[in-house]
């Protein structure tokens, strides 16, 4: 990227916000379920990235740092709010439409519930692999685990998610 060399921390925030904010919030929703919490997590991550810009400097590194921070902070939010797990927050807001709304909403809720029910690593690997489309190596780097561990978390997570989703279809 030609302009990246001249980015300062503020410009980096603006550019990455424009390109990735919504996707990162949605990633976090897959991890923590609650959209407001997800937004807080992602905003915190942007603030952290801004503070680190001097050592990141490149958009690619900054985005990788953002992803990693969003995943880690989502995990620690869940840890701190573990008590709330038994009382899931209300269903997500959903798009317009009347008749199919209930069905769509039910399916979305079921997917998020199923994700929420998985162990941390399985949930994270699934979100990074199937939502962000990251490679095995990228997921390993993001989570700080081996590629072998990514594989095994993925296959266990997929199996668990599928068995839960069988009931919904």
């Amino acid at each position, binding site marked *: 990227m030609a302009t990246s060399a001249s980015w300062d*921390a*503020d410009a980096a*925030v*603006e550019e990455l*916000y424009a390109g990735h*904010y*919504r996707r990162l*919030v*949605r*990633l976090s*929703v*897959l991890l923590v379920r609650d*959209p407001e919490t*997800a*937004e807080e997590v*992602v*905003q915190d991550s*942007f*603030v*952290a990235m*801004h*503070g*680190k*810009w*001097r*050592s990141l400097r490149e958009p690619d590194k900054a985005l990788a740092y953002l992803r*990693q*921070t969003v995943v*880690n*902070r989502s995990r620690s939010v869940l840890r701190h709010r573990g008590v709330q797990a038994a009382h899931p927050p209300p269903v*997500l*807001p*959903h*798009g317009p439409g009347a008749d199919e709304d209930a069905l*769509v909403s039910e*399916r*979305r809720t079921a*997917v*998020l519930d199923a*994700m929420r029910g998985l162990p941390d690593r399985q949930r994270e690997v*699934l*979100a990074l692999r*199937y*939502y962000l*489309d990251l490679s095995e190596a990228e997921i390993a780097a993001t989570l*700080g*685990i081996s590629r072998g561990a990514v594989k095994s978390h993925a296959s266990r997570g*997929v199996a668990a*998610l*599928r068995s839960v*989703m069988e009931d919904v279809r």
Partner: protein
Amino acid sequence: MNPTDHDDELRSLLDDAVSGVEPRHGLATIRSRTAAPPRRGWAWATSGAALAVAATVAAVLVLGGSPRPTTASPGPAGSAASASASAATPSEVSSSRVVVEAPAPGAILSSPFRVSGRASAFEANVQWELMAGSSVVERGFTTAEECCTLSPFSFQVTAPPGDYTLVVHDEDVSGGEGNPPARHSQSVTVR
């Protein structure tokens, strides 16, 4: 069904599950939280986070002779920084969560030199600064091999000849609420 169908199905399930999420106005919040104070020097200019780091470094210097470095809380950025007025000579401070194995404290080295050790750091992020007195000469970060357990890291430092304090630490992501960041501080000489 073959694996590709499975993958596509999972992709669309996850994508659909969050497709209704439309985040609002995050940029204004982020901007207000990253607004820089009036610039006094580059080391202070980046953000509140940079201020906090600088303040903690100052706190380490203050505590140089103290036997309880690991309880050094950064506290409010201003108070810790202003307390550094009477900072004594830097001395070796270490924490069990950041261990520098080389170079040895007080080592005389030629530039560039490599620093290696083990750290148990949040997100496996290991940050370092090379200080001359209270000013940062060089800084950077690296990633330990694994997060959250004592795991190897190494990085290279390039600096002109001089006497320095090398500070290696993880970041305080709790905003001062949790344990203070782990850090190691030692003197090195480049000739």
